[in-house]
């Protein structure tokens, strides 16, 4: 086999899969996203069985397998549960490194929302930090209508 490769050049074929997608959000996520876009409000959905307020909202509770019922508005402020400071970025990230990803428990929510932190010095980020949503000026009905979270009072 070694001899074979002295005669033949290993060809590498460059290609890309480009498939356009249009994901339907469904009624539940559509309400959540349009509320971000139109009213800068964040909503969760309440499970009648376990009592959790699910943020982001789901049509059925993943834990109980029953339909969620009430819409519950949650605060745009909450607490950092865990985070990571990204040092080496990739082109698909919404912010340039260094920036932080965080799991944020908004006041009133039972589950964490994963988002990004900005306008904060890396050393100041810690578990328990209170943060507030900063909405984007150009909102389209997507999760990034919240541009990022920043420390409360800053």
């Amino acid at each position, binding site marked *: 086999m070694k001899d074979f490769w002295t005669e033949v050049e290993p*060809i590498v*074929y460059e*290609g890309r*899969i*480009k*498939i*356009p*997608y*249009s*994901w*339907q*959000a*469904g*009624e*539940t*996520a559509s309400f959540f996203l349009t509320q971000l876009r139109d009213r800068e409000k964040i909503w969760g959905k309440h499970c009648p069985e376990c009592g959790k307020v699910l943020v982001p909202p*789901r*049509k*059925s509770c*993943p*834990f109980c*397998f029953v339909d969620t019922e009430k819409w519950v508005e949650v605060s745009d402020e909450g607490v950092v549960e865990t985070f990571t400071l990204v040092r080496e970025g990739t082109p698909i990230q919404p912010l340039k490194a260094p920036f932080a990803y965080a799991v944020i428990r908004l006041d009133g929510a039972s589950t964490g929302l994963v988002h990004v932190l900005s306008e904060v010095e890396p050393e100041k980020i810690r578990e328990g930090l209170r943060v507030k949503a900063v909405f984007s000026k150009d909102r389209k009905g997507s999760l990034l209508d919240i541009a990022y979270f920043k420390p409360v009072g800053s």
Partner: protein
Amino acid sequence: MGKRVAIVGTGQTHHRSVRRDVNGQELIHEAAVRALQDAALTIRDVDGVVIGNMDHFEGINYVDCWSIDGSGGYLKPTIKLTTGGTTGATLAIAGYHMVASGMFEKLLVIGWEKNSESDTTGAISTCADPIIERQIVAGAISGLALEAQAYMHRYGATPKDAARVSVRDRRHACNNPYAQLRGEITIEDVLNSPKLADPLRLLDMCPRSDGACAVIFASEDVAEKICPAPAWVLATANRHMYSDYTDVVEMSSLLSMVEASRELWKKLNIREPLKEVDVIELYQPYSWAGLIWIEDMGLCKKGEGPRLLWDGVTDMGGELPINPSGGVVATNPIGATGLIRCAEVALQIQGKAGAKQVPDVKLGVATGFGGNWWTDMLALGKKKPL
């Protein structure tokens, strides 16, 4: 020795071209809830979840993990299978083996697809090898057109013969509240519909759909307690061969169907399938398959498929009705399609098929098609296997 396995509940969504009201997880949830309701079980009764779709149609990786919210797999064993168009049938076969193994007592098997979310042809073309074939492959339609051409050339069948298949299935679909396309069509409608790839016309082809199907497989230890007349899995057989489309040489005959059906009939001790099988849900992605593959399955000799169609043998009321649900040309959420075939046969055996019911079904066969000219088959029966 393994356990005997039966289907004790089925559920499906009302299949449509686009379901804008739900996202993928919610679609899955609908079918899962319906199957549980059908079996009068709760999600807590289920020991595991098996799920499948074709990745590039929705662009989501690790779907077994992603779908937990909708599938009910939270803190349960959850696993994903995907084999192109045969996915649904592959899932059913997996449901059988996993329960027969004794590892699960009640298993929820889900097939789903939200084809409206992507460019179906673009996505499916990525199945071709990027170096050898992808630059020339143009989706599924042209491949099927090659088969139709080869068959026409060899046996003299005509587009009119193929159209008779579409007419049958669209008529049958009128009895199926879950079917997507529920309007009768005529031979002329088919022959006048827009040409896609010679000789295929629009009404020869299946649509693409948003839909999901869920089936609950149960072990003999509990099946009859859950459902007094379940549909027992009698035998399975499949063939997935060929790496590239260019490997297929003879196109007027579906080799995987020939081999898989031979194995299935042998396992069932069936000599004359036309007489001994009561109903078939055939994964028939286009009309011509309804002529070619019934020959390859051994219902009649090569070239005689059209005769069976024109004699009404495969119509409701005929000797061996095919696709009482309307089949794939009426409804095609790809990852679910093969599983829907299985669910429909189960309904037939259980006597729960409503307006689609074929009288006195004791033995039914469901097939799957997809990938590189692959075939999967399952036989379900009323009588508990020995």
